[in-house]
């Protein structure tokens, strides 16, 4: 039915006289844009490295840089206390901040795209609240999953509820005629339901358990351990490439669900895949460090402003922005007040919000 290509190539319009010159200019500008975005991603990466080094170097024990390097290189030839500080505290905290930020940033970015809602994030749609409920079951009622070692009980319970909440969101999104608005409203209902349940448990809790729980819900990187860090990093390494592979489809989905479908994108399948990835990353991150969901809302917005919505850049950008915000928050959490580690969840919000408002309220967007 289609006419041979050569007759279609010169159809109709003769491309306006200057089109080839214009094409050259556009190509130059587009390639410049791609280069600038690669540059921005590189810059973000460099800032993360710098921030991790700073996060690692600063701390109340006042170890000198040479002592830190010696401890890193020869952990067995330094005083035991110094080794513990470097290897069991500083390093896992600093790296956990990056992994948690990257996970939540990517999870938030995919959620905002597949639910077509700028308010979507693990924090606003109930994943954090569900995790908090799981944690409160463990802390207050001592409820535990069978076979879970002691060190993992709170995280394990939190994980089960967090992943359950995303699966519920997914079920709702699969219902016929469930628009993205329905899913978001359902997520908000989850937030309130789990908050109420947590409050109920707090009401019946004894004083010690209550204190533990309140501290847990504030979110803190001090819960980082090497096994948890390893698990989260592995999840990132497995999940992120799958997300990146869906970049084009997700970009098309941003132009409208019906339009994406008409261009051949299997929208329900893309959405399911994204929600599955989101559930793994956000549930792990939140269950390990507590309620630090805010970065999942903010990082995608910042990445969108910096890098546009081509998901080949937006997704990794959101990961990197999330990691950077978390790492900076981690520095602030441990150094803002001398001798006190402020829960990171609090600092994330305090550091993230001005950053966020500054970028969102600036009218002229770059790209």
């Amino acid at each position, binding site marked *: *039915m289609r006419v041979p290509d050569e007759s279609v190539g010169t159809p109709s319009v003769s491309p306006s006289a200057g089109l080839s010159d214009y*094409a050259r200019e556009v190509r130059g500008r587009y390639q410049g*844009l791609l280069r600038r975005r690669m540059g921005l991603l590189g810059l973000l990466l460099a800032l993360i490295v710098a921030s991790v080094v700073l996060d690692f170097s600063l701390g109340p024990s006042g170890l000198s840089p040479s002592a830190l390097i010696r401890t890193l290189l020869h952990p067995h030839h330094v005083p035991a206390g110094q080794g513990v500080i470097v290897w069991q505290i500083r390093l896992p905290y600093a790296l956990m901040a990056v992994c948690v930020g990257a996970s939540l940033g990517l999870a938030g970015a995919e959620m905002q795209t597949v639910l077509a809602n700028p308010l979507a994030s693990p924090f606003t749609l109930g994943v954090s609240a569900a995790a908090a409920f799981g944690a409160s079951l463990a802390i207050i009622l001592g409820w535990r999953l069978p076979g879970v070692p002691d060190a993992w009980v709170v995280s394990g319970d939190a994980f089960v509820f967090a992943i359950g909440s995303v699966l519920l969101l997914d079920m709702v999104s699969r219902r016929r005629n469930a628009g993205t608005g329905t899913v978001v409203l359902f997520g908000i209902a989850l937030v309130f339901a789990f908050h109420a349940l947590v409050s109920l448990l707090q009401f019946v809790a004894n004083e010690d358990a209550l204190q533990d729980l309140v501290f847990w819900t504030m979110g803190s990187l001090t819960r980082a351990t090497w096994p948890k860090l390893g698990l989260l990093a592995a999840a990132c390494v497995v999940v992120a490439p799958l997300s990146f592979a869906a970049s084009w489809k997700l970009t098309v989905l941003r*132009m*409208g669900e019906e339009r994406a*479908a008409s261009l051949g994108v299997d929208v329900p399948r893309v959405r399911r895949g994204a929600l599955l990835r989101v559930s793994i990353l956000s549930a792990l991150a939140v269950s390990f460090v507590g309620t630090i969901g805010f970065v999942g809302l903010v990082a995608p917005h910042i990445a*969108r402003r910096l890098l546009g919505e081509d998901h080949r850049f937006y997704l990794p950008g959101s990961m990197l922005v999330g990691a950077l915000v978390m790492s900076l928050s981690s520095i602030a959490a441990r150094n803002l007040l001398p001798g006190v580690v402020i829960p990171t969840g609090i600092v994330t919000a305090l550091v993230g919000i001005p950053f966020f408002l500054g970028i969102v309220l600036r009218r002229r967007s770059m*790209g």
Partner: protein
Amino acid sequence: MEGLYCEHMTVRYGRRTVLDDISVGPFPPGRVSALLGPNGSGKSTLLRALAGLGEATGRVMLGVDDLTRLNLAQRTRRCLYLPQALPAMVHLQVLESMLAAQHATGVVPSDVQGDEIDAALHMLDVFGIADLSMRYMDELSGGQRQLVGLAQALGRHPDALLLDEPLSALDLHHQFAVMEILRRETAARQIVTVMVLHDLNIAVRMTDYDVILREGLIIAAGAPEAVITPATLARTYDIVARVEKCSRGLPHVMVDGLR
């Protein structure tokens, strides 16, 4: 048989039957066809069912090919439905949105010399908006986004293009310009183009094959002069209308009132 046609098509939304065992077409290649009818008559549903979006029973044929045997990605490559909703106001440059549409299901081979950027610019130029290529979608007017949507669709080189009210966001100048472009490209590419239209005068003047629907049933199908008549308009829209020749001898629809 040439062209796009369907046989025994039934579409239900829950318990409501929107299209009941209808057979329509063939919509001829190289020509622009229109679907006419009041709101809720099943025009969009028919277009979507032809494109394979949503659940429908029946057979859709494009020439000798049974489209219902293809998977969604293959089928949308052959037969592309363009929704009425405009492309969303995303922070994406027009050129990027064209490239993304190209990549949605693997890159579609181009029919112009050069790479995908050349192809995208060529297609934007067809619709007269090459100068918008580096602008962001969230800075464009509704009409401009509509033109980008059309360029995205045609840029995938479908064999059939199904357009749901493509003129609704456009001003008078652009309505006529887009109709001219679509007629020209449809003829040059020998594709099937079917569009939902509300403006009967555009249908009667600028389309070659019209189908009128009411409540899921085909009221009339054929050449515009044969289909758009006072009798069918009365049956379809419950109006009293005349179709008269204007001073240049072209048909014109005038509505005198309700029936």
